[in-house]
């Protein structure tokens, strides 16, 4: 349940921001989470609800946007979506063009994109 430590980090970050802005309550927090991370959206929402109780963030909405994985191949110069494996689909680090190993250039992000608050 690393979602709990991520939820706690969101609370700390947004609370500090909201207080500096003189917010009376936080309405919505928007996150961007890369496809290569193993952050589970439902679990994160549950943890978020729990840790924000009785804070400025209570009852605020947590919106999670998934950032698609992008890989780059140093062998054949391919850059684009990764090769997927199995069902449910898992992005791999195998080049969809030449089969060599690729580098992930997008998809490991886990960031707060925006905060909507009332003042």
């Amino acid at each position, binding site marked *: *349940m*690393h979602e709990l*430590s*991520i939820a706690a*980090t*969101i609370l700390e*970050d947004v609370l500090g*921001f909201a207080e500096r*802005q003189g*917010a*009376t309550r936080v*309405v*919505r927090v928007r*996150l961007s989470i890369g496809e*290569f*991370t*193993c*952050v589970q959206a439902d679990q994160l929402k549950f943890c978020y609800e729990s840790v924000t109780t009785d804070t400025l963030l209570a009852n605020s909405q947590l919106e999670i946007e998934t950032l698609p994985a992008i890989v780059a191949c140093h062998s054949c110069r391919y850059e684009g979506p990764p090769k997927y*494996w*199995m069902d449910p689909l*898992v992005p*791999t*680090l*195998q080049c969809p063009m030449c*089969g*060599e*190993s690729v580098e*992930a250039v997008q998809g490991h*992000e*886990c*960031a*707060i*994109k*925006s*905060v*909507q*608050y*009332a*003042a």
Partner: protein
Amino acid sequence: MTTSTIEAVPEEIYDIELEHSLLEANARLAKENRVLLDRHGITAFDFMGAIGSGKTTLICRLVERLKDKFGIAVFNGDATIANDTEPIARQGVPVVQIATVNGCHLDANLVGKGLKKINLPALDLILIENIGNLICPAEFPLGSRSRVVVVSVTEGPWMVKKHPHMFLGADLVVINKIDLADIMGVRVEHLVRDVHALKPDIRVVPASCKTGAGIAEIAELLAPHA
């Protein structure tokens, strides 16, 4: 008669763009750990794997093999108890127990605190045993040079397919307990194939802490020319 109306002033709503990374604090501390290790010429390896995959025993075998030639310390991450530290401490190397107090992964902050507790100039290698969990530690680098994933045949034939994320971030995969592969009806080459489907260039070493198979090869990868 005049009527006065009081209207509620609607709250003003603001929407502010931020770009705050949630994993950055850990990543920054991991980098600090790495700088400290590099300054002392120490190479650290982070061992990840499920409970019972054989991480502690593998580390024990590696310590046995390497302790005469290198200064080694072991960091042992566990949710609560210190049982795992005993067989390693018996070999006479420093062991730092890191209790995450029921947390599911080690983080760079805990490892950084551990680094303050040992005599760094005496060391060449630090083997860090992460919490037995194949999902959570993936997002939390510690500052090690490489991440080793330990998976054993006793976990069944689908371990790689069930936990792909852990393998994507690994630099070396050990398939442990191969002496039990026949009894378990697990084909080691299928596990190797699954790992390579995720990451074609990753090194995979089949091993057995019981028979000693693969241990020399892993030791050579961690500490070349030992």
